[in-house]
Every structure is written in structure tokens, then in C-alpha cells.
């Protein structure tokens, strides 16, 4: 079964090195074409004017914020239930990427809110639930790295990820369930997208660019996580063999954290 086949990090690394250049190329091409349509070839909105261009980065960032959290929770669950080592690493590697997308959704939303709503921030259901999502990512990362034994960190943070996943549908349906300044869904809805193709094309291109970027950076971070695991086991072997542990690895952890 393919699911178990890639529980082997070495086998996974072979697959990752095949996918990574394609993901990098797709990211660059999709961003270039998406930015061309978003900033040059698409019209302003009849109500919002030029500020609608913020939508082409805000909406993909918000979609990716929710997608990454769901992916992280699924990977964490697979790691927790089947002790799938690569799934644990995927969850750990996804968290900082998802946190960045969530920050960007909040930041660009605030910059869109000021000219359109007259305020940078409002404590309504959509904005507050996305802020909670950002704190969930931060909590996950803090918890995953809080233990000397990474397996314990993965287990504790997986439980947090699974509890927090209830926030994802709350974000999605918050605009329907509560009164909010935030507009309801325009693209992903039962009756089809209520958005003109001239605006839908840049939105889809930018969404695909964000997705390709996620895959690219995820693979880079997973390679690093696999290296870290190998370093840890080599240092443990050194300790068991009675050699002094190599301190250089600590510098790496400090440098990237």
C-alpha cells in the first residue's frame, strides 16, 4: 500500500527529490502569471475599485491557512494512530508554512478592511476565528518542540492539532452563522462562483501558486526534518558508544529556531 510504502524516509526522499524541482518551477510560473493578471490584466471592482486586487493574495492565503491546518491535523492523526514517521514530519513541516499563510490572511485582510470597512480590525466571528487559528499554529509549534524526545512532542502536538481542527469549519461557516462585516463566500458555494471570469482567473492562478509554494517549501522542510532525525540517532549512537556527543547540532537548531 502506497501509504505504508512512504513511511520509509529514504524512499520518501527519493520521491521528494523528483517532485521538488517541478513544484519550484510551478510556483515561479504560477506566481508570474497570477501577478500579471492580478496587477495588470484584471479590472478594478465597480464598488471596491482597485482595492479588489488585495483579494488575489488575501483569499488564497486564507484558503491555504485552512488547508494547511486540515493537512496538518490529518498528518498528525496518521502519525498518532499508525505511528507513521513521515506523517509526523509532514505535520511538523506544515505548521510554520500554515502559520505564515494565516498571518498573511490577517495582515492583508486588515489592509483591505481599512479602506473598505473603515477599520483595521473588528472582533467578529470570521476575524476572531482566524486569529485563533494563528494561535493554534503557534501552540502546535511550541508544543511539538517542547520535549527532549521528539516522539513525545509529536504525540502531544498531534492531540492539540486534532482538538483545534474544530475551528476550521467554524471559520468556513462563520460568515453564515453570525452577523459579520466580512463578506460571505463568493467562489466556493453551492450555486457556483459569483465572480466574473476576469477576476476568477487571477484568483485561481494565485491560489494554485500558493498551493505549489506550499508543496515546494513542505518538501524542503521535510528533508530538513528527516536530516534532523538522522542527526539525533547518530548522536545517540555516539553517546551509547561512549563518545562525547557532537555539539555542532545544537548550533543548527539554534540557528533555525
Amino acid at each position, binding site marked *: 500500500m502506497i501509504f505504508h510504502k512512504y513511511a520509509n524516509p529514504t524512499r520518501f526522499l527519493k520521491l521528494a527529490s523528483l517532485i521538488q524541482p517541478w513544484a519550484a518551477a510551478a510556483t515561479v510560473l504560477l506566481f508570474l502569471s497570477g501577478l500579471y493578471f492580478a496587477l495588470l490584466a484584471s479590472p478594478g471592482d465597480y464598488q471596491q475599485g*482597485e482595492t479588489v486586487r*488585495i483579494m488575489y493574495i488575501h483569499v488564497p492565503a486564507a484558503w491555504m491557512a485552512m488547508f494547511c491546518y486540515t493537512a496538518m491535523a490529518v498528518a498528525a492523526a496518521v502519525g498518532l494512530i499508525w505511528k507513521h514517521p513521515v506523517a509526523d514530519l509532514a505535520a511538523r513541516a506544515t505548521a510554520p508554512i500554515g502559520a505564515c499563510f494565516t498571518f*498573511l490572511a490577517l495582515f492583508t485582510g486588515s489592509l483591505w478592511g481599512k479602506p473598505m470597512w473603515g477599520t483595521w480590525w473588528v472582533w467578529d466571528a470570521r476575524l476572531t476565528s482566524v486569529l485563533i487559528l494563528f494561535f493554534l499554529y503557534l501552540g502546535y509549534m511550541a508544543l511539538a518542540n517542547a520535549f527532549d524526545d521528539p516522539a513525545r512532542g509529536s504525540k502531544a502536538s498531534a492531540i492539540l492539532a486534532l482538538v483545534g481542527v474544530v475551528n476550521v469549519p467554524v471559520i468556513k461557516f462563520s460568515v453564515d452563522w453570525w452577523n459579520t462585516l466580512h463578506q460571505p463566500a463568493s467562489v466556493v458555494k453551492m450555486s457556483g462562483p459569483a465572480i466574473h471570469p476576469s477576476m476568477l482567473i487571477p484568483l485561481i492562478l494565485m491560489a494554485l501558486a500558493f498551493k505549489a509554494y506550499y508543496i515546494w517549501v513542505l518538501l*524542503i522542510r521535510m528533508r530538513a526534518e528527516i536530516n*534532523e532525525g538522522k542527526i539525533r540517532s547518530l548522536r545517540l549512537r555516539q553517546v551509547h558508544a561512549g563518545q562525547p556527543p*557532537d555539539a555542532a547540532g545544537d548550533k543548527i537548531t539554534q540557528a533555525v529556531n
Partner: protein
Amino acid sequence: MDGFASYLNMGGHGGFIWSAYGMVFIVLLGLWLISRRYVRLSKAQLDHLDQKRPHRQESQTDET
């Protein structure tokens, strides 16, 4: 030139729009650079530890 200036002005909302795009650029580029540095440093450390291993294996072989 006026055309370019008015394009940058974005109907008076240029500050909001360019700040949003600028932050996306900074965060996504920054995360990519940090991740690349992470994998390079960990690879260098792994290679460094791997270089030590043959000596240890040789000594183990000698012992056996």
C-alpha cells in the same frame, strides 16, 4: 510617467495594496530562505557526523 505614477497610486489606495503585496513577498521569500538554510545546515551537520562514522565502524570491526 504620469501613467505609471497613477498606476502605482491605484486610485488612492496604493499604500494599502502595495503594502499587502510587499508583505506577502517578504514572508514567502523569508520562509523559503529560512527553510533552505535549515535543510543546508542539517545536511552539513549530518555529513559531518557521517564522516566520523567509518572510523567508529572500523574500530568496531577491529574489536570483533
